[in-house]
């Protein structure tokens, strides 16, 4: 609980440090639903998945809200839900650092995290987000997200993506072992239908868990790897 | 004829015309800038003699226009044009056909490119330069006069045939922006 207060305090502190000039400037916002899709897996699972990323702010500081979740359609069960709120400031031409909090639920008890991370554009146009998280239980973990947009034409876009989750120390209560514990690879082919606002896509996703995490999943009777067909649309407002 | 002209190339434009008139009595079948375009224009006239002048027309050169802009004469008349450059740029008063002017514009552009004529002065030294095509950048035809700002001079011309002619300044851009007038010969 103490740690949780500390995290909240840190968040408030960074908010207070927002440059004054940023407040007087025009505020911009953006909402991106990067994934909004139906997934049919090789083991018969049917999922509804979303991954949203929004911001409001100025050149100097942005308040960013990331939300992702998975619903098992047949059981109408929210399998995973993660919300992250962070403040992001630029540190170089292409990179931002961010600090904030994240709440993961459910699938076991809720977990609060303090998050610091970097976010930006790596050479060769690779979009990258790297988060370091410390949970209220004091367990440290990291998540790396990378994405690349290959323009087949200026409207038809193939997007490979990869997400890697790892933990420096396990948290068995929520099914997390230490080490690299899961990866998700995606490949989506989208077409910009209305500006960049609505872009339907089809693709595949491959999820896999490793090591202790895989063992924990097996104990729960879950699969440790799955190919999934995805169909959905990207929305940008 | 070409060799005669070289002598005059460095002399002030005003004097040139007078000398030019004496030197050539041929019927002009086109502007003859060293090369001549005898096969192009029709015979529209010849340098006139001062004693035959029946009309004197004052012509003012401005930046970039003529005043007046319309003239008409009768076939066979010899006219004295007293030309004064009241502008701040070098200008030309040149009598000819549209086609002759179009050709002359190319020569004028070349003279400016080579620095023989600058916007507001004539570089008499460079006038002696070879244009690279065996012709010199002289500007001494009796149907025209090239004047620096403030200079004046005259052209005496006998209009031989009836038809439409133009008097023009063929310095780059001047003709196109309207420094051209009409001469109709009845």
């Amino acid at each position, binding site marked *: 609980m103490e740690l949780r207060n500390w995290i909240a305090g840190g968040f408030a502190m960074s908010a207070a440090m927002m440059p004054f000039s940023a407040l007087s400037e025009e505020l*911009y916002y953006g909402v991106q639903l990067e994934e909004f899709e139906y997934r049919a897996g090789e083991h018969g699972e049917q999922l509804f998945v979303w991954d949203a990323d929004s911001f409001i702010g100025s050149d100097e500081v942005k308040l960013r809200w990331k939300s992702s979740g998975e619903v098992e359609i047949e059981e109408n069960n929210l399998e995973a839900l993660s919300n992250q709120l962070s403040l992001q400031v630029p540190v170089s031409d292409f990179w931002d650092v961010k600090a904030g909090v994240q709440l993961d639920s459910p699938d076991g008890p809720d977990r609060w995290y303090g998050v610091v991370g970097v976010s930006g554009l790596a050479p060769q146009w690779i979009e990258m987000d790297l988060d370091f998280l410390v949970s209220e239980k004091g367990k440290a973990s990291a998540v790396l997200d990378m994405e690349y947009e290959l323009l087949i034409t200026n409207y038809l876009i193939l997007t490979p993506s990869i997400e890697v989750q790892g933990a420096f120390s396990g948290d068995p209560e929520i099914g997390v072992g230490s080490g690299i514990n899961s990866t998700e690879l995606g490949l989506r082919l989208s077409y910009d239908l209305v500006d960049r606002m609505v872009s339907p896509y089809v693709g595949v996703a491959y999820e896999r868990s490793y090591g202790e995490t895989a063992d924990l999943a097996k104990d729960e009777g879950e699969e440790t790897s799955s190919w999934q067909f995805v169909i959905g649309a990207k929305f940008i407002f | 004829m070409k060799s005669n002209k070289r002598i005059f190339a460095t002399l002030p434009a005003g004097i040139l015309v007078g000398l030019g008139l004496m030197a050539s009595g041929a019927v002009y079948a086109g502007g003859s800038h060293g090369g001549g375009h005898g096969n192009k224009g029709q015979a529209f006239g010849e340098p006139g003699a001062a004693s035959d002048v029946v009309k004197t027309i004052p012509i003012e050169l401005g930046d970039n226009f003529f005043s007046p802009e319309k003239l008409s004469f009768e076939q066979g008349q010899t006219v004295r044009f007293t030309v004064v450059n009241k502008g701040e740029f070098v200008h030309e008063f040149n009598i000819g056909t549209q086609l002759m002017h179009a050709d002359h514009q190319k020569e004028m552009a070349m003279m400016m490119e080579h620095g023989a004529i600058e916007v507001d002065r004539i570089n008499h030294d460079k006038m002696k330069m070879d244009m690279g095509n065996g012709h010199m950048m002289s500007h001494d035809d009796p149907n025209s006069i090239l004047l620096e700002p403030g200079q004046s001079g005259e052209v005496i011309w006998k209009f031989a045939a009836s038809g439409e002619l133009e008097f023009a300044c063929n310095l780059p*851009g001047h003709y*196109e*922006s309207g420094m051209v007038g009409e001469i109709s010969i009845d």
Partner: protein
Amino acid sequence: MKKKLIILGMSQSRRLIAAIGIGIGLLSASMVTAGEYNLTVDKVRISTGEFEKTGIGYNGSSPGPVLRFQEGEEVVINVTNNLDETTSIHWHGLILPYEMDGVPEISYPGIKSGETFTYRFPIQQSGTYWFHSHSGFQEPDGAYGAIIIEPKGREPFRYDREYVVQLTDAHPHSGARIMRNLKMMPDYYNRKQQTLMDFFSDAEKNGFSETASDRMAWGSMRMMPADVEDVQGFTGLINGKGPDQNWTGLFKAGERVRLRFINSSAMTYFDMRIPGLKMTVVAADGLNVQPVTVDEFRIGVAETYDVIVRPKEDKAYTIFGASMGRSGYVRATLAPDEGMTADVPKLKGKPLLTMADMGMSHEGMDHGNMPSMSGEGHKPEGHSVEKPMQNGKMMDHSKIGSDMDHGRMMKMNKSAADPFYAPGSGLMPQASNGGKFLSYKDLKAQKPLYPYREATREIELRLTGNMERYIWSINGVKYEDAEPIRLKYGERVRFKFVNETMMTHPMHLHGMWSILDTGSGKWNPVKHTISVAPGTTVYSETEVDAEGQWAFHCHLSYHADSGMFRKIVVEGGPDNAANITPVKGERSWN
């Protein structure tokens, strides 16, 4: 005070200015003239033939009326704001007291909703200018119009009729939305990016490994060679009409027609031509230039060019302007009769920036080629352009860049390269018919406004930006964080624009003229907007002869709004002129 009729729409008057110009001059000089004009700022419908939207206009239309002033008169303009937000009108290119310049926060507070503001100023110049809102994105949303000022004396050219040809890049999105989208995703509107398909066709031409290393070179910089136009998806309008609505100006064969081109676009440069006609450029940014005949010219945002054409045949001619990035075009027609049309050229090619535009080519900044170095009396030591990329790793790729450049140079050698573009630039203009394309180098003042003298000091303005964040700045500092530039009344300041970005910036100084250094000495043209191409350094000089405070900015709407903007403060005034000795005072100031 007499009321003047505001001429709505385009003037089709057939006044023979040349013949009676002097008469008019005498007439207007002897009259005490004062024109009173009324403008309302309204929400209007804009219909381009491709889309419709609600925008902003004047007196109920966009573009607004053509305002016709007389040199020497005192104008009174009542502007009533019918919007529910603050507005303003800036008289682009007009020399006037700074309180009348119409820039909120700099000249005055702006015009609040429901209020009427009365502008009152003497008209001290003549030519083609324009007016537009200087508030938010009202100008891209449609708040612009043309100004014609009749000279006191006769024009140095002749024409039988005249038309305003006012260009804009009307966009289905509102300006505010475009700005937000660019901040969210800088390539939101760029649909000219290099694709996999381009990769295959380039690989076929240049080989796989060369194409791959070219892509890697740009990718390592996270820059796009196709980043020529930030905001695509517009419909090009001429006098408010889209290509299909085809604005038409009438003429009789043999007449001289004066076309007053004004680029009121938010973001778009156009390469203007009239297939079948030569154009004689007689004025740039309102002021007369020594006439130069061209086949095509590029008009930067906010610039104006007056040209004279003389269609000799009884047929229609298309006025065509491909946008610099070839993502759109403007089209109109000159014809002997309404309804006649001529062929509309197809948009061809897709210009790609080269490493030269990044300031990275080997031949990059060859001083000998720079226009500023060939002129008289310039600082002999010169200045080299700082490389935009400090990262040594990126310089490794300069070889690739220069190899690429050679191919382009070969093509370009056919026509003389324009010294106002980086040698090997992918933006180097070329006339579609292989003829003459106007360069800044060709512009020479018809009547220099100021005696030629040495500048008293130089101010370096590096044009900078971060494309990925869509932040544009000067010397790396955006407007919000910048101190004003302080000038002293009476000095002649030399601005050194160093473009370190990959985009072309039309820099507009309010209130005072910019004497563009083309190397023509006393004939250097006098402008209000100076376009600075990527990878180049351009100089302009300003006689600081207007007191007060002024705006100075890139006229691309979304660059200005995101920081490429400065306030200029002129210290002192006519009674308190700086006593400054010119740096190399060979020429006297008189």
